[in-house]
């Protein structure tokens, strides 16, 4: 059952224990209040010097601009200070432990950044002649090779821009394959534990979503799939390991059942970090799976993107993979960009997902990461990620609550809020208290299959010392909650740049931009 428990969105007005200290500026030591750009900049200020405009014939016609835009400008030193101060209000993986379940917040190596900025990769245009970008195609070819070898598949589409876009790509290939076979199937099976993007993606291309309830241990059983499987089902979308951090034991049987029924198996690859180098999704019988390069392969999350979501395909779906795609012609590479450019009749791409060829900047970073680790290093990274998650589980299970019993997990561990029962402390309160301790909280209220979910994914790039400090902190907070110190949790955070934000106010009368005389 999906629970309907939402997270509280109104910040209760409470006294701040440290609020009594008032400074003239409002600043607190290294925490500096920073006004909006539009409150400090001006129309005349500028941080860029440009060459003189040469004499020319004006060809803008009647549309030449005749009024101000209103943009605020800053000199270079003011710009530097504005953004550095803002940056200091953010938590980041470089600052500390970031155990966000389902997000794979691992270390982002800086060699990746350096390689992406080589002029030969960073300063080439997607439409310059193909003979001038053979090295870029070679890189894309190598990346494809790594992705296919790691997943046990023979085809990959690189162009999707992010995970959800990859899901869309995979599901489009599935729909195209059904259409080619003359099938009008219109149902997609999605477990309750799935990421919200799965049902949203299915709906976007006209499928109806039929949900599969989770069994008592949080996983999807072959029986529960068979119960909802019929001739109308086009595909199953399943995450493995699932969002509770558990490997779907029945996966091969489920894949066989899905195929026997004439449907396809879409696997959400968000959790590939738990498998990389140790098992290949191709061996489970998947037909399509996106790979979040920004999770498993360490390209930075950047405060919410950009991502990249290449999709690997089974042989059955490979002919439908989208444009553009790479072809090897003897010693050189060719990018097939249009249907007219297709030479092999067996390839019937369903269409095009994006202008140009995809997230090249992310491809360079991901390949740099893979080459650095090597096959052996990726396997070790996967092993350490699972080891770290189980270490958290083993160190916390006696005082927190595991919804599905004391069993092994993969790369992340899911707790529910039953250990907080009777304390008046909610999952949200607990997370906010973790902020005051200098950590980023775990993922909360997801997945929806348990009450007050707390999903922790440590990744392989945390040391034992970092994990021990977090474990000690959580144990201390649990004791504190059980001892009845409710106010401490309700007040939290008090040491962050802001205290709890009023999300209800923001949504009731949305203010989405600065304007002259704006309140606040």
């Amino acid at each position, binding site marked *: 059952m999906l629970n309907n428990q939402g997270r509280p969105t109104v*910040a209760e007005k409470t006294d*701040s224990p440290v609020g009594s200290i008032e400074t003239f500026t409002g600043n607190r030591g290294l925490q500096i209040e920073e006004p909006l750009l539009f409150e400090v900049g001006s*129309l005349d*200020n500028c*941080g860029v010097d*440009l060459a003189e*405009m040469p004499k*020319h014939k*004006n*060809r803008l016609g*009647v*549309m030449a601009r005749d009024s101000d*835009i209103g*943009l605020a*400008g*800053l000199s270079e030193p003011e710009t530097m200070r504005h953004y*550095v101060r*803002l940056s200091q*209000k953010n938590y*980041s993986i470089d600052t500390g432990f970031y155990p966000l379940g389902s997000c794979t917040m691992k*270390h982002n190596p800086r060699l990746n950044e350096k390689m992406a900025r080589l*002029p030969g*990769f960073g300063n*080439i*245009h997607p*439409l*310059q002649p193909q003979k001038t970008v053979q*090295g870029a195609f070679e890189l894309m070819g190598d990346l494809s090779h790594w992705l296919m070898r*790691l997943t046990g598949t023979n085809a990959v589409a690189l162009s999707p821009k992010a995970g959800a*876009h990859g899901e869309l790509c995979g599901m489009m290939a599935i729909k195209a394959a059904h259409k080619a076979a003359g099938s009008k199937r219109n149902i997609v099976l999605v477990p309750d534990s799935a990421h*919200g993007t799965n049902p949203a993606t299915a709906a976007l291309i006209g499928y109806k979503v039929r949900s599969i309830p989770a069994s008592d241990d949080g996983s999807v059983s072959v029986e529960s799939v068979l119960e909802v499987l019929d001739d109308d089902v086009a595909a199953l979308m399943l995450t493995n390991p699932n969002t509770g951090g558990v*490997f779907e034991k029945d996966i091969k049987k489920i894949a066989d059942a899905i195929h026997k029924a004439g449907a396809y198996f879409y696997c959400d690859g968000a959790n590939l970090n738990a498998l990389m*180098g*140790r098992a290949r999704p191709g061996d489970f019988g998947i037909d399509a799976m996106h790979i979040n390069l920004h999770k498993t392969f360490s390209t930075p999350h*950047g*405060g919410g993107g950009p*991502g990249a979501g290449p999709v690997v395909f089974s042989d059955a779906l490979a002919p439908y993979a989208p444009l553009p795609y790479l072809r090897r012609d003897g010693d050189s590479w060719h990018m097939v960009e249009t249907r007219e450019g297709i030479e092999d009749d067996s390839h019937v791409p*369903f269409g095009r997902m*994006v202008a*140009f*060829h995809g997230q*090249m900047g992310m491809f*360079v970073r991901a390949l*740099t990461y893979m080459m650095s*680790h*090597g*096959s052996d290093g990726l396997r070790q*990274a996967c092993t350490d990620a699972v080891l770290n998650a189980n270490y958290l589980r083993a160190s916390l299970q006696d005082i927190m609550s595991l919804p599905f019993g004391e069993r092994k997990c993969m790369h992340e561990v899911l707790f529910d809020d039953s250990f907080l029962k009777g304390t008046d402390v909610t999952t949200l309160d607990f997370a906010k208290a973790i902020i005051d301790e200098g950590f980023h909280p775990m993922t909360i209220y997801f997945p929806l299959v348990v009450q007050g979910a707390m999903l922790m994914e440590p990744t392989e790039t945390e*040391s034992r010392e*970092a994990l021990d400090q977090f474990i000690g902190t959580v144990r201390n907070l649990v004791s504190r909650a059980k001892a009845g110190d409710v106010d401490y949790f309700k*007040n939290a955070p008090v040491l962050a*740049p802001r205290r*709890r*934000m009023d999300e209800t106010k*923001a949504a009731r009368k949305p*203010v*989405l*931009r*600065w304007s002259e005389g704006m309140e*606040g």
Partner: protein
Amino acid sequence: MRYLPLTDEDRKVMLAKIGVDSADELFSDIPDGMHLDSPPDLPMKATEMAVDQALSRMAAKNVDAGSVPFFVGCGAYRHHVPATVDHLIQRSEFLTAYTPYQPEIAQGTLQVLFEFQTQVAMLLGMDVANASMYDGSTGCTEAVLMAQRVKRGKKRAVLSGGLHPQYRDVVQNQANFGDTDLVTMPPAPDGNEDILAQLDDKTSCVVVQYPDFYGHVRDYSKLAEQVQAKGALLVIVVTEIISLGALKSPGDMGADIVVAEGQSIGNGLNFGGPYVGLFATRQKFVRQMPGRLCGLSDDADGKRGFVLTLSTREQHIRREKATSNICTNSGLCTLAFSIHMSLLGEKGLRELSGLNHALASNLADKLEALDGIELLNETFFNEFTIRVKEKKAVDVVDALVDKGVIAGVPVSRLLPGEQDLDDLIVIAVTELNSEQDMDALPKALGEIVNA
């Protein structure tokens, strides 16, 4: 391996705590026969030096845009990005943060998004903008879907022949899978088409590009009125955002939804991605808008702060009823855009736009003066289309590469099979083109067309 902090001793202690003898046991849920006994058949780990050398060799096989006279545009433009921008986006706290789901410790990202939304709304001349899309082409698709939500039940969408062909293909692809009755106008290299004739009472939107794919700058004010009078929305697409420093905004013309590619400000060419889609609309349509939104609020002490808002539109809450399946946006690219935009300000953007136009206009003069070359545009910003009479554009561009000039995009690369388009080249000029570049192209092109 240098990125892995656990030592063998750590692993031993941790396995003991977990109560298993080996790490392999942790993977015992994976069914027999699906375990890999050894790492997959791929190269083994490599030093930082070795990886750097291997990738640098690969990069060196490409001709980078800074190394030759370079005039390629069509939706991606080579502009100067100030050093400050690249430094700031590599600040750890921006680069390695996640989506700001815990606003108390993400005010940096959130305030940037609020400022970004403001800059975009101003630039596009609209009420509100979102916190970005993947890029212009996917944003264009989202605009068509949004128009259908606003105009419930109206399934027709009409795309101008002046729209970037790959944007058209992306929208067409979504339409093939979804519930849109899409009408695509034939390519319109001369900038003229009768798009109104395609409107019926089932039309939710008309999509035009400004300046259009061939560079023409058209006034869509009247079209906006006519489209709206027929009960549809006008979507205006901008692929060269710097043009709006010199041109009236889409909002000035009465657009209902504006989509733009923001790459030109703050973001490098990167061979096509990552880029940053800009998306703006009227206040009254905000709840139908896709993508993340950042809004103003207060904290428990009454201090001003920012949060992600109206998330009840989004997939993580609404699942199959969401306005879009989008989760990730272009976070770091929005930051780069916003920093560069702050450095430019009103004054810098207006100057930069003026400079782009002036250089392009002067190059057009030089090319137009060549025998065998026809300029198709009366109006343009920094990009225009030439006809190479009695030659194939692909051959001409190819021959120019051999003369060390990367000249522009043959229209037939994007629209193959259209015979009357195979002698057209779209040429873009930016502030990075030097005087030598401006001489090199006419000289080399003259030699080729008159050969």
